[in-house]
């Protein structure tokens, strides 16, 4: 059994209590994507605006637990103003961080070790992998953003 402290790090509680980039963007020009976690009822709406190859703005609304909310807030801070290619790379890295545990269930190849330094504040979420049911909370915003990027590029 892991400790609550692994899950509820101070940074996480901080982003939960004071979420960054909360709100909406006008669509169009921005793009609006909804994400659901059917298991716990979490709902998130991600608004993204692109300026050429840059993710120029992002806003988040919706509701959910401290993990899904803080992960969305941390994500918004990490990707805003970044080149879309880098955002995709960050999404990949983050999702690899979150699949370490799930891979025990499956026979897919071991993921490469994740470079935690590259993740900055996001690394605070690594404790989530010790709580398998919460992984879906942490990845909700990320999957929603990934879907948004796919739609943007279509």
């Amino acid at each position: 059994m892991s400790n609550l402290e692994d899950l509820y790090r101070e940074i996480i509680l901080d982003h939960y209590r004071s979420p960054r980039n909360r709100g909406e963007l006008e669509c169009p020009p921005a793009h609006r994507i909804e994400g659901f976690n059917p298991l716990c009822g979490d709902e998130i709406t991600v608004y993204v605006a692109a300026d050429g190859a840059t993710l120029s703005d992002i806003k988040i609304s919706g509701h959910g637990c401290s993990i899904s909310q803080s992960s969305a807030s941390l994500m918004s801070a990490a990707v805003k103003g970044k080149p879309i290619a880098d955002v995709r790379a960050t999404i990949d890295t983050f999702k690899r961080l979150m699949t370490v545990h799930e891979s025990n269930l499956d026979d897919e190849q071991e993921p490469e070790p994740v470079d935690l330094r590259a993740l900055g504040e996001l690394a605070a979420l690594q404790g989530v992998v010790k709580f398998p049911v919460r992984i879906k909370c942490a990845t909700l915003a990320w999957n929603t953003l990934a879907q948004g990027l796919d739609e943007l590029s279509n």
Partner: protein
Amino acid sequence: MSSYDPHRVRADVPLLRRVIDGHPITYLDSASSSLTPRPVIEAMSRYYELRHANVHRGVYTTAEEATAAYEGARVAVGEFIHAAHPSEEIVFTKNTTEGFNLLVKSWGRANLRSDSVVVLTEMEHHANLVPWFQLREEVGFEIRYIPVGDDFRLDLSNLDALLDGASIVSFSAMSNVLGTKNPVERIAAAGHAAGALVAVDAAQSVAHSVTDVQSSDVDFMSFGAHKMMGPTGIGAFYAKRALLADMPPFLGGGGMIADVRLDGYTPAKGVERFEAGTPMIAEAVGMHAAVRYIENLGLAAIAEHERALTADALGRLRERFAGRVRVIGPSDVHDRGGVLSLDVDGIHPHDVAQVLDQHGVCVRPGHHCAKPLMRRFSLPATARASFGAYSLREDTDVLLDGLDHVIELFG
């Protein structure tokens, strides 16, 4: 005074000896699935050890014994809900949900037209919603909902108008979110008066109070074993004999046929028409043992015990967390079961449950498969604590201390 002793039940339930993170387990999730007493576990083990065989088609000794055990379970389950013809009115299903699929896709598909009306309620579990939606996509009938009032009870003031022209009214005997017990007899009588058939979701009620399909005049009922101290993988669908006789087959395969030719088949006549393939034999044995176990405890005694626990918990939650913890459900124990959906002061139920886990407390966060009801009360989710025959006042103590910690951490 009842001589009911929950400690005797606890002694039978091995899982209650688990220690979670240094804390003895405080199991408050019986509405989701109940814990299994040793006599149920052992009945299934003994079945596999001594008399396992496929049923219905064997003449050798263990095949006869397995068949007798399986059919004996059917009769016991039928008697448990006071069916008039226990051996002819119970179909074994894999869970409550399959029972509703059977109802909708057999009876419903044969009887509903685009101008038909089906009446449900706003507090239904997805099991009693989605199958109707699936058939509506095909057939296109109207669904009306009996509304839920701000007192967390069905608002029956417009019942007759809602039932006007309805083919069926299908509703839960007890809400798995609110704990509300609905007036089955009254709704059944109104339904029949309007010419509708009456289906009841007894998943939450069947292990917590007496069920009598005859006295309450219910036409169809579905419930599952795993919420009544029985095994996973089995439930029961009840239909009055005359109605069952006219229902077309549901799943097809071996065991449900009278004849099969290359150009078609003739279905069997009785309950077996609805049991395609090798049935849940060990599970039926386990469900039978669970029925016996509950009957020995006495449903009235269980109901009384849980009512006392609920009254105590409602009172203490109010005193200790006034304003900070809201119970989403009736505030008194009148027509109410031991299900306490908690909304903790803006703290997400997922986080509530996570912190409680560190205290060994098992509660369930989420929409409890009743999303329309959650929307009705503008809640994404609740943290639900629920009692069973083995629950104690001390479980509430641990829950309340855990809630203090939750509020301290996130408040």
